[in-house]
């Protein structure tokens, strides 16, 4: 974070970005997000990650649901499928089952993921579908102009909660940990380096990786998850956090006042495709692979 305070010269920066080649991954369509939206840095993070991992654009498929976040595929020059509200994961699962060679990113907001799409998450997680699920959590419904979401804090006032939100917010990280997700991390749109690093790790993980990205809605949330609030709250996971220790991960996930960012938990286990291959072997009477 300290790096941000050093002077940045625009021309130098542009040169650096051009050389990286990651601009090619951006599509020619201009994002429809509001100026200052945290999602811009997520696009940057994704392009940097793909670039860093040297994955060919043609081999990337980005699947999204409905919402501000789900407009994401239009702003990348990769294959993309802008699907239905809440149905990102099953569509992504179908794509991955059809073609293992593809790098599949699933993208949605907090409403798309945990309200309408909540039923699909545990199943993608338990099957360990080898996709990367990026959830942009701004705690509000932005595309429909500001209503409460499943992660809105108590007391939040919106157009559908004029007398303050009384529904307790979900704790997505705790949920994902309980679903046996094989890679769980959290990052913050206000820290692009951390973000791109976490996205890179998430994509690199073989299995279902879940990255929770805290991201302010600059238009409809002036009080809750603002840049200034989040900046003050967010903290790095301690250096000594053991990412194979689920109990420790759960304890950190419960810290909602000072959300830690970093890799919470990681394990390696067979993916859905591994298991489907195993079934083919069994069906064909071959010895099950070790």
């Amino acid at each position: 974070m300290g790096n941000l305070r050093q002077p940045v010269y625009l021309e130098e920066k542009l040169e650096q970005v051009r050389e990286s080649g990651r601009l090619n991954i951006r599509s020619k369509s201009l994002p429809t997000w509001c100026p200052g939206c945290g999602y811009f840095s997520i696009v940057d993070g994704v392009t940097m990650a793909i670039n860093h991992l040297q994955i060919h654009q043609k081999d990337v498929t980005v699947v999204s649901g409905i919402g501000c976040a789900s407009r994401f595929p239009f702003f990348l020059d990769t294959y993309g499928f802008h699907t239905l509200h809440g149905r990102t994961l099953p569509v992504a699962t179908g794509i991955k089952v059809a073609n293992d060679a593809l790098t599949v990113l699933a993208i949605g907001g907090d409403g798309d993921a945990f309200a309408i799409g909540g039923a699909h998450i545990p199943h993608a997680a338990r099957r360990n579908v080898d996709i990367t699920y990026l959830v942009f959590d701004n705690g509000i419904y932005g595309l429909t102009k500001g209503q409460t979401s499943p992660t809105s804090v108590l007391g939040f006032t919106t157009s559908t909660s004029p007398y303050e939100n009384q529904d307790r917010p979900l704790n997505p990280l705790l949920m994902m940990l309980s679903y046996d997700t094989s890679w769980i991390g959290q990052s913050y749109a206000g820290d692009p380096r951390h973000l791109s690093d976490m996205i890179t790790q998430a994509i690199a993980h073989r299995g279902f990786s879940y990255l929770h990205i805290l991201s302010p809605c600059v238009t409809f949330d002036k009080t809750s998850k603002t840049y200034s609030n989040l900046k003050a709250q967010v903290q790095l996971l301690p250096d000594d956090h053991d990412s194979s220790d689920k109990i420790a991960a759960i304890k950190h996930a419960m810290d909602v006042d000072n959300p830690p960012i970093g890799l919470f938990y990681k394990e390696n286990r067979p993916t859905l495709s591994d298991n489907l291959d195993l079934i083919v072997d069994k069906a064909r009477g071959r010895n099950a692979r070790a």
Partner: protein
Amino acid sequence: MTDTDIQLMFCGSAGDGTIAVGDIFKRAMAKAGYKVIAFDIYPPEIRGFGKCISRVRVTSRQAYSLKQQSDVLVSLNDSYAIPHVTEIRDFGSVIYDQAPIAPMAEGEHISGHLLPGQLPYGLRIREISDQTTGGSKSKNIVALGYLAGLYGIKGDPFHQIIQEKFQHKDPSISETNLRAFDTSYDEGASTFRLDFIELGTPERQDVGNKVQMMTGNAAVVRGCLDAGLNNFFGYPITPATSIMESLATELPRRGGRIVQTEDEISAIAATIGAGYAGTRAATATSGPGLALMIEMLGLGVMAEVPSVIFCSQRGGPSTGMPTKTEQSDLHLAVYGGAGDAQRIVLAPTNVEGAYKCAGKAFEMAEKYQTPVIVLLDLYLSNRYETVVLPRQNPFEADSSKYRSHLERGVAYNRFALTEDNISPRTIPGEEGGIHTITGLEHNEMGRPNDQIHSKMSEKRHNKLLQAFDHPGITIHKRFGGEGKVDVGILGWGSTFGEIFEAMLMAQAEGINCSAMKVVMLSPLPSQPIKEFFSDCGEILIPELNYEGQFANLVASAVSQPFTRLNRVPGVPMQVEDILNQIRHLADRVKSPTAA
């Protein structure tokens, strides 16, 4: 040569091996070269208890409906069979146990319930089972042996099927069952037969691998496999579950992948995901599941992604009658969804058609880049028919319209407007074909755009009309009288079996009539329907739903009046019911003033 046409009914509890014996019988008859159509009824609850009925019609020419009245009833449990005695025709036969183990009160034995015209054949079923096998488990085999002996059916095919049935068990089980069969076979052969049931010689003795006996759902599975299905996603629901169950075994053997999803929404979502990624993918469900899939189906229409959905209809609405048949999901299949969501809907009328439609659905889905719904119903899904499958795989392995080499290097528009309204397609992983698809209305490039809605709606509508000429599939067909006729019967789905039988009976009575089946319900082949209307004095549309859903569809295409016949008994329509309507309409044509 005698035209064989006999229908048997086995009735008993699940523990009596009722369905099993019906299965042996129909397989043996098919093996002997007869044509078979069969339908089993299980108890709605878990197996092991409750009434089971297996009906098997054996004919020399393939029949597509079961007869209202059976010729022979085999009772393996009198208390279950007694209510069905009335379903046996005059001079038909009832075979039952003459030596049950326990004393019974008056009225508990089936012999006291026979109608005067029916013929009783009491056999010491339990005793023979005990003597030959040492237990009463083979009562069903004993009854079967007697039946075969009584009607002089050759024993060899039965031996083969019984051996196949028990091949994975201790060899002694097969032996004792064969002994039970032979003992009662001799008893049957020496019984003086009083009924008038004749089995002619089967038409073809050279039964090769081509002729098979299978259910509608099994035919769907076979069609999927022959069409090269890669991925299947499903959620269990009666009466479609057996499609997924068979594929769970068969698909991985061919290297395919099958996933049981968390719900029907995920099943169709994953199917469309796989379709987008370029494989042949399908899902199977029933009405309630199709209702859940409809939103995703709309996405498939808008984003022009191939997908195949098999829907086996049952009684509705809502959870309805899961174990009863009906044809009431037509509106949902054809119209369901937000906006103008044009799609292809196919409804086979018999098991062979189920095979054809299943395979062709994949060709159509790919070629026209659309969801294709194949509508079956519980009756068609579960009934057995002998089918002749083509020796050559009749399905195209890949029907997609891909970008040609010439187009490579040029900026790619996934939804390019073309002459045939079908846009060349690329799939993820393909160099230079990168694009994003969406459920939002979009321009040729695939970017959200509201300005082009009229043009795109027209594209999506018109591209499907080419399916009328899709090669290798009959989308409508007329049977019976040519040219002008007095009465025309228009039908769809499995009810066409009963329609066809009724038409033959009406013709035999001298009524000038003709029947037309419509296999493609969307887009509707209006022109041939109009032509059929203009050839017929009166038109009858029988279907198993209350609202007349197909009739409504037809009414939107033609202006002439017609007569509806709607029944929702949960079981197939009665041929007699249709026949009566045909007679009535024929009278009306003859003397219009009387109407």
